[in-house]
């Protein structure tokens, strides 16, 4: 089963996602697929904060800043459960690495996620809502926002359920029982 969790900055989406997957895996081994690369003190602080949030929840961390499908090769358990956080960093890493043509990034990521979905019993994905500040940015940033939009759309189509976290409160967007 695949769940997509979206939310803005400081919305409480990570805490919600971690608790959600903990309730799914019921104390069994689960994986945390981390996509963020911490190059500066601010992102290091963010990584540390997230590690603290996850502490004691039984996560095994897999660092996978790109080539997301490769995360599955690093999982040893038979039944695989993972939380992937987050899509915005994965998209930035793939787009700005220069290795994949920009137009191919969306397809590469969706193909990778499809592999994970197929191989895993439970896959929970955290993505960002970054479409609502009404600003017009430079061309590169606009392309990034557009890629994020398309990817979120495709992930939502693949997902069995989609939840938006608003001030820490889950709001169901796509329900697995109804849709």
């Amino acid at each position: 089963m695949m769940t997509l969790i979206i939310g803005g900055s400081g919305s409480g989406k990570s805490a919600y996602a971690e608790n959600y997957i903990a309730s799914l895996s019921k104390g069994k081994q689960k994986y945390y697929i981390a996509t963020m690369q911490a190059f500066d003190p601010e992102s290091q602080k963010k990584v540390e904060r997230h590690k603290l949030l996850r502490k004691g929840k039984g996560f095994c961390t897999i660092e996978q800043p790109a080539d997301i499908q490769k995360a599955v090769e690093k999982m040893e358990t038979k039944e695989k459960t993972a939380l992937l956080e987050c899509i915005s960093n994965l998209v930035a890493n793939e787009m700005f690495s220069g290795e994949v043509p920009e137009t191919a990034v969306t397809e590469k990521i969706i193909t990778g996620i499809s592999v994970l979905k197929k191989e895993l019993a439970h896959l929970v994905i955290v993505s960002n809502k970054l479409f609502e500040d009404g600003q017009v940015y430079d061309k590169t940033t606009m392309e990034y926002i557009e890629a994020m939009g398309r990817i979120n759309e495709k992930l939502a189509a693949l997902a069995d359920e989609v939840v938006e976290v608003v001030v820490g409160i889950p709001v169901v967007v796509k329900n697995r029982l109804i849709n």
Partner: protein
Amino acid sequence: MKLIIGGYAQGKLRYVLSRYNVDTSKVWDGEIPERADEQRGTMVINHFHNWVKSRIVCDGCPEEEIRQFLEKHWDCVIISDEIGNGIVPIEALERECRERTGRILVELAAKAEEVERVICGIGQKIK
């Protein structure tokens, strides 16, 4: 305490004034009244995110200050813009304000009796 959130220009204040039947003299814009003790009835704190930013700029501690305020003045409606749904700001101060505002709102939402999100002038009760 009731929390109202939503994007810019979504009619949040209008929604609150009509739903809770409070008049504009009880509305505080981007500030918390200094002499809150003298206030009677339900207070409305509008543009709460602006207050958070003003406290951060002054090296205050909005997290602690709002906790203390609510201990004394629980009967209030707090209205805030949702500011976390955009691109990460280039300026460090803006990033800090965005992040801290989000976390404060999560804490307020957990405590609130009711949380509503206003979209196009329509309130969606999410708690």
